């Protein structure tokens, strides 16, 4: 379903300072698979996620998702692809602090211009699923870290995406909240979503529902 072919990604800071984030990566992720990308900071995990989510383009090589060459998509089409297929959970949640929980969660629906009933139906579904329905009208900045993360997860899933991507999802959480997140992951996995997580949190290692753990080191996949 997701395929990275001969991916090289370089960041050119200036003419003499070029960082190779990914060095000839090849990776296949099947539909419904839960993959954990492990590795130290700067190893290239987040870059892989951004390529799968079409947030950036490779320097060379190809990213194919459901037989669509997403690395070749022009920006306007990449946005549509992200909107329809990807739920992204960011390390720092990337919520809009001055908006309410409800407003943050339904944000990805706005470009689709759905009717109010459909919005409410989707909102109810995800807020119930991620146990945040009692905070729907609260302003996000007043929530705790764990609650903010549940809002971020609800937002990532409101469009019912096929692929869920999480970048260091437990970096700002204590152990109890991290374990809660892992339970949420288990539920998402049960919904047959393809999940890719980049983390160096040991809590994610050797979980029974994780299909594969992939070690990334200096821009390469270590087998």
């Amino acid at each position, binding site marked *: 379903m997701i395929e990275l*072919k*001969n991916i*090289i990604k370089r960041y050119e800071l200036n003419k003499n300072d070029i960082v190779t984030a990914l060095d000839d990566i090849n990776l296949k992720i099947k539909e419904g698979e839960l993959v954990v990308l492990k590795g130290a900071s700067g190893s290239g995990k987040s870059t892989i996620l951004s390529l799968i989510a079409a947030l950036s*383009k*490779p*320097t*060379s*090589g*190809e990213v194919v998702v459901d037989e669509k*060459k997403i*690395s*070749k*998509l*022009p*920006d*306007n*089409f990449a946005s549509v692809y992200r909107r329809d297929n990807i739920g992204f959970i960011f390390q720092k949640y990337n919520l809009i602090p001055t908006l309410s929980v409800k407003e943050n969660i339904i944000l990805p629906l706005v470009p689709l211009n759905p009717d109010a009933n459909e919005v409410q139906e989707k909102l109810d579904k995800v807020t119930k699923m991620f146990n945040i329905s009692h905070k729907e009208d609260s302003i996000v900045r007043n929530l705790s870290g764990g609650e903010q993360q549940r809002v971020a997860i609800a937002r990532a899933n409101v469009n019912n995406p096929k692929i869920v991507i999480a970048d260091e999802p437990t970096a700002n959480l204590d152990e109890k909240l991290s374990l809660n997140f892992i339970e949420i992951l288990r539920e998402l996995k049960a919904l047959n979503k393809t999940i890719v997580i980049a983390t160096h949190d040991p809590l994610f290692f050797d979980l029974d529902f994780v299909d594969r753990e992939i070690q990334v080191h200096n821009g390469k996949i270590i087998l």
Partner: protein
Amino acid sequence: MILTPEVLAIMILNVIFAFFGIIAFVLSVKIFLGWNPDSVSQSQYRLEKQSFLTATIIKYIFVVKVPLFLFFIFTLDKISNVLTGAMCAAGVVDATAYGTNLFILKIINLYLFAYWLVLNSEDVKHENQPYTKMKFGIFIVAFFLFISELVVEGVMFNSIDVDKMVSCCGTLYSSSATSAISSIFSIDTAVLLSLFYGNFLLIVLLYFLKQRYLFAISNLFFIIISIMSLITFFGTYIYELPTHHCPFCFLQSDYYYVGYLIYALLFMGTFYGLIVGIIQVSKENRDKNYRKSLIFNTLYVILLSSFVMIYYIKNGVWL
């Protein structure tokens, strides 16, 4: 050299256009030569990024250039106030050896730039950007015409001598004039009007038959026949003077600037008509272009005919 605020504005814009146009030209050549949509190489990804930047530069130049044509005519009209003998833009166009050529070049560029804009908008509607190579190839050609226009425009304004007497439109657009324009007066009015209305009816017929190439060709002829009939016949009814044939005077306030509307309708109608034949788009978009062409051309014909009818109703005679 004549340097009114309008001329100065045009010259400053031309310098800006030339600067960005040269950048866009260099990038267009690189994209045109290296473009391979199937490649996943570093150079192709770089070209894809550059193509977005380049198309944006070109788009904004052309988006300004197209309406700037009307400002150019407005400027010529204003300059006519300071040239001895000139009554309207016609005198300014005739004041130098470059005026007529510049005017023709501007009209060609107007259609070319508008065509590029439509091609670009079609290109970005598709994931695989099917017109990318073509649009940059066309820009490479258009660039030379674009730069020629800027140069000739500068030379023309520089060559205008305010102390030199120029001819007025009454002299330039008359059957006794010695210019090429005068030859159109030798065509019988009845023949010309038959061609004008016949051509329009053909456009209507081809609209229903959906013959895209013939539709485009008939629009091309309609541009020429329309301008000829405007000068020889319809203009006289706008001025209500049988001897006045100027295609510029009705751009003035005395005629409520109706000329801008006339030329805008003619341009829009024929442009969308040409687009139907030139660009391969979805049936839905092609039908839209067909409709736009027919609507603008019809409004154009109605507007011109209304001057004749109103004159006849008011006076009971033809000119």
